[in-house]
């Protein structure tokens, strides 16, 4: 079964000094990006645009979290929404039923999700490729069914967060800006953890497991332990993303936080940007959200689903023509330039040799 991602590139490679200028330039660029991101709510006043920015950040954060297990470790989970929903439900219940501080509730949701991911991983990691993907879908569906029927969690009716308890303790605001900063902070945190993983031995282990699990074992790597680590970290951050959703929309139900399409979207974001790369999901989230919101704003009122048709067509075109995502495309671009150069040199040398 061919599930390896042959065309994958590492961010390390992409950001390597030789391909993108030297590394201090890189850091300055990075700092500028963060600064720009911090200024968005100050510059963009329109709440609807701010909302768009938040949606991008949230989608990016989910993509980055998914990427840890789906991209780096190559365990294509198609049921990540389970953790998203668990996070959203846990924090909301703790907040509304137990009066928890929202931040603590959020953390609890993350920890609970990570713990549950260990159980799921324990049973599913023996499965290969598509079987694993399907098993995760099944788990997510089961969790959705449970929540749809669980009275305490509001069953199909869902849960509402109290809009009147505003403030940082309950993480409920009328303004968009606080949500924006929370989403940004969360994204940066997830990226930082991801970056750290990628550059530590874990990142190497994950990629090794993805490429050749059998060979990885011969090097003393306990496959399920490291898959578990990837899965747990990933589900922790996914759950936190779910909590943030609940805090922002103030209403959750199984249809909105446990919907299978969302799992796919988390993966799409990564794929679109470049699987197994640090910044790929961020770029992917930007592109996807723009396509999504753009087509809906432009064609959504027609009543014939034109927006969906265009959105879907775009996805297909991107998947077919840019299978390695934006990052892969960038890399290919540079690689081709390099190759053309090398070819020329080779030809020149050949000509010289011929002449000699």
């Amino acid at each position: 079964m061919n599930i390896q991602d042959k065309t994958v590139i590492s961010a390390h490679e992409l950001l390597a000094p030789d391909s993108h200028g030297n590394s201090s330039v890189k850091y300055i660029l990075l700092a500028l990006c963060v600064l720009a991101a911090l200024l968005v709510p100050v510059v963009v006043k329109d709440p609807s645009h701010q909302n768009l920015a938040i949606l991008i950040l949230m989608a990016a954060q989910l993509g980055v979290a998914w990427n840890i297990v789906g991209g780096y470790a190559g365990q294509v989970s198609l049921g990540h929404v389970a953790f998203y929903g668990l996070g959203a439900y846990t924090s909301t219940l703790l907040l509304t039923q137990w009066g928890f501080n929202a931040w603590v509730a959020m953390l609890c949701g993350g920890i609970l999700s990570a713990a549950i991911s260990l159980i799921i991983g324990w049973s599913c990691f023996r499965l290969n490729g598509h079987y694993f993907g399907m098993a995760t879908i099944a788990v997510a569906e089961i969790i959705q069914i449970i929540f749809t029927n669980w009275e305490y969690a509001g069953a199909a009716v869902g849960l509402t967060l109290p809009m009147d308890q505003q403030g940082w303790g309950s993480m409920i605001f009328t303004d968009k800006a606080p949500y924006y900063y929370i989403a940004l902070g969360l994204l940066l945190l997830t990226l930082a953890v991801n970056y750290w993983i990628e550059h530590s031995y874990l990142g190497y282990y994950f990629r090794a497991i993805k490429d050749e699990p059998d060979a990885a074992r011969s090097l003393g790597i306990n496959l399920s332990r490291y898959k578990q680590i990837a899965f747990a970290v990933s589900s922790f951050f996914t759950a936190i993303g779910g909590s943030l959703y609940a805090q922002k929309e103030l209403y959750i139900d199984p249809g909105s936080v446990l919907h299978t399409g969302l799992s796919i979207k988390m993966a799409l974001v990564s794929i679109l940007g470049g699987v197994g790369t640090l910044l790929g999901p961020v770029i992917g989230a930007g592109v996807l959200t723009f396509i999504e919101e753009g087509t809906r704003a432009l064609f959504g009122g027609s009543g014939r689903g034109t927006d969906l048709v265009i959105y879907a067509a775009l996805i297909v075109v991107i998947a077919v023509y840019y299978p390695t995502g934006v990052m892969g495309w960038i890399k290919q671009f540079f690689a081709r330039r390099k190759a053309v150069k090398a070819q020329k040199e080779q030809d020149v040398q050949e000509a010289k040799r011929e002449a000699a």
Partner: protein
Amino acid sequence: MSLEIIIQTLASGILIGLIYALVAIGLTLIFGVMDIVNFSHGEFLMFGMYSSFWMYSLFALDPMFTLPLTALFLFALGTLLYKLIIKKITNAPMLSQIFTTFGLMMLFRGLAQFFWKPDFRTVDHSIVSGAVQVFGIQVGMPQVTAGVGAILVTMGIYLFLTKTRAGAALEATAADKEAAQLMGIDSQKMFAMAWGIGAACAGVAGALLSTFFPIFPEVGANFILIAFVVVNLGGFGSVIGALFAGIIVGVIEVMGGFLIGPQYKLALVLGLFLAVLMFRPQGLMGKQ
């Protein structure tokens, strides 16, 4: 639970299970040959249903008579789809393949809605209608026809794969595309054929379903998850596995729904599926 109810639920479960199997066989075939999970398979089913519906509503042709046409139409659609799109992602990473077929799923649904409106359509009078009485239980005639059709098609596909040269070539291509080429097998043709046959299976399932199931752009969604479970349970790539798994899933769903409560019937099927995977990670009849 009386004996009558047991037999009745069993019969209903088997009949719906056969339909699941037929949908799943197309999926498993495409997967087996190309290693691609076709998320848009439910939409093939939907196209099959619409094909039957339109021939019925425009020309008053019964879905049973137009079934071969529907199969042919879907075969053409499958091969065309392969040539236009899937061909380009044959060697792409698994994730972009998922991405592509998922996009196709949305695209097909969108197109169906765009052209045929989101309304529910039905074939209200077909030559197969009413119910038959067997062993003291009632079973719907359309369901029985569909079940028989599903068995026939499955057997046909199985014989085709195991007994014919083209079947062997398909298997070889599935195993190693490049090596198959070295045997003189045109792998492009094989892939196109796999998509054609896979789509045709879904088309036939659609035609059979159209006599008793409402037709609407999103109808594929009702079947696709179960079809995936069936494919997995049977083992990716195994036609006979899909047949058995389909029946098992159908029976569990109906029986479980009756005994435990309908709201948990899908959970039950999924739970069983996970349990089986724990012991047989490659599915019931899958190859390791």
